[in-house]
């Protein structure tokens, strides 16, 4: 369960203060499927970074499973990211010198998971994204869609509660993009909270819970249950 209240994020650009996020209130229940949409510079990525504990809000409260995390020190935030949050990026961010398996293994190496268990979990994660056959390939030998699937395997291998995807299909063709969306929705169906930042209305509209941002503010929030009936609709 994610609860944001009064979240603001200011950036200092020269003399000027830019309000990337202004007074955001948002509740994301466990197992939610949320899309964040809006034009460039609307604050989508800033919000995602705060949700992912990569960045700290200037003001406001962020409760993750009931724990206030907005002011935690760097070390603690690292621990939260490691245990509870998985990231998927537009440009995959695979480590080029490592194989697919090596990239998936990376979070577990630094989390101190034992070698035997790591191999097992890498196998399982790659199987779940359908890439077992490509485990020994390095990222330059993989297609864009395959790279993103490796990135998803890497994001889920630590068993997080929340998966954050920043334009996950932004660099892919339609069919590869569809495969990535299918994988994300499959994880969501198994109970993982999925939050997707996207430009693409086709992808954004698939989410049950949709938020539209502009100028750092939530301009619309729609929340529908799986059968399509609206449970909450508000506009600002």
């Amino acid at each position, binding site marked *: 369960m994610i609860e944001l209240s009064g979240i603001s994020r200011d950036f200092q650009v020269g003399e000027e203060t830019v309000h990337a996020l202004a007074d955001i209130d948002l509740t994301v229940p466990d197992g939610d499927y949320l899309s964040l949409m809006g034009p460039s510079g609307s604050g989508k*990525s800033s919000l995602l*970074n705060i949700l*992912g504990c*990569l*960045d700290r809000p200037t003001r406001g409260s962020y409760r993750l499973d009931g724990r206030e995390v907005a002011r935690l020190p*760097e*070390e603690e935030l*690292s*621990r*939260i*990211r*490691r*245990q509870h*949050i998985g*990231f998927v*990026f537009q*440009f995959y*961010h695979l*480590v*080029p*010198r*490592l194989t697919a398996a*090596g990239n998936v293994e*990376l*979070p577990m*190496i*630094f*989390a*101190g998971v034992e*070698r035997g268990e790591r191999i097992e979990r890498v196998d399982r994660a790659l199987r779940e994204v359908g890439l077992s056959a490509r485990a020994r390939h390095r990222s330059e030998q993989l297609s864009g869609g395959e790279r993103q699937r490796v990135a998803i395997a*890497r994001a889920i291998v*630590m068993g997080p509660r929340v998966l954050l995807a920043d334009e996950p299909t932004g660099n892919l063709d339609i069919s590869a993009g569809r495969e990535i969306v299918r994988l994300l929705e499959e994880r969501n169906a198994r109970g993982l909270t999925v939050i997707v930042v996207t430009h693409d209305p086709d992808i954004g509209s698939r989410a049950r819970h949709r938020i539209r941002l502009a100028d750092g503010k939530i301009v619309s929030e729609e929340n529908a249950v799986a059968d399509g009936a609206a449970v909450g609709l508000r506009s600002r």
Partner: protein
Amino acid sequence: MSFRDLVGFAIGALRGHRLRSGLSLLGVAIGVASVILLTSVGEGARLYVTGEFATLGSNLLIVFPGKTETTGISPFLTEAPHALTLEDAEAILHHVRSARRVAPIVFGVAAARVGDRRRDVGVIGTTSEFLGVRQIRLRSGRYLPAGELARGQRVCVIGSKVQSELFGSRNPLGEILHLGEERFRVIGVTAPRGLSIGQDLDEIVHVPVSRGMKLFNKISLFRILVEISSHQEIPAARRNALELLKERHEGFEDVTIWTQDSVLATFSRVLSLLTAALGGIAAISLTVAGVGIMNVMLVSVSERRREIGLLKAIGVMPRQVVSAFLVEAALLSTAGGALGLAAALGATRLMRTMYPSFPARPPFWVVPAALSVSIGVGLLFGALPARRASRLDPVAALARR
């Protein structure tokens, strides 16, 4: 995370840019090798010189006129000394119980002539005991005759080089050699030996001590070498000799007695200092190598911004980022250190085969020192890049393509 995993990760990263890693590794190798080689040469010089002193013979006291103010290597004479005489030498032999052999010495340079061949030679005036004390071997003939000190015969023993230069291939035994205005009969030739404590014994002419004193118009001896029967008795013998000479010199303590140990220790100290200085100079190249490592690591950090950002995103803690980069730098420098160590050990071995008389040998502590210094260099010069990596803002690092 385990140390093994950390090392594995670092090795993977280093293999990602082999040429760069290889070059900075080479820098450390050169630095470490030059430190080891120069200290080996210094240490070799020390062993060589101390070895040369050992050929003086063991258990030696060296008496010379004048009182040194310090234990330094070039003595300052503080008062006009009494002459150190042949009688003093005889007194030492008779009254210092443990004195086994006594060899008085005068030294000077004289013009030597055989027929129309001439050259300047060093002349040592001494006694038959000198042969044993300095462990001199003869090639032919015999050494100076034993006998009363004050009445020297006009005989001489010549070095092998003096022989070849003044007599050519002729047998010199029984021939006449002129030293200055005096005639000496050659009775022996010493075996070639080369440099020994700065004197080329092959270029020396030995004459009886009283002849030598007359030749150079000296009333005082240059040195008295006293061989003591056992090592334990050296301190007592030294005290006895000092007292004896003080008594004989009307209460003036106007001689200095060095033990061979103290001379050796002085030389050893000076040469160790030299070794340290050489090592210090070579250490500069090690510092340069460290800067090279820092440079490579800084390049690596800025090149791997996205990787570092990603590591942070997946929950790698700042201190883990620091250790990953530190281990990387330490691996580079340690591998370089090991390579330099191997190269230097090989080179000193080669030197020893090429110049067997010069014992260029790395000091015993060189292996642990080289390895720990190179690890240290890596950690020291890796610290700044590692810190920079750990402070990278993941949002900014990941935003760039």
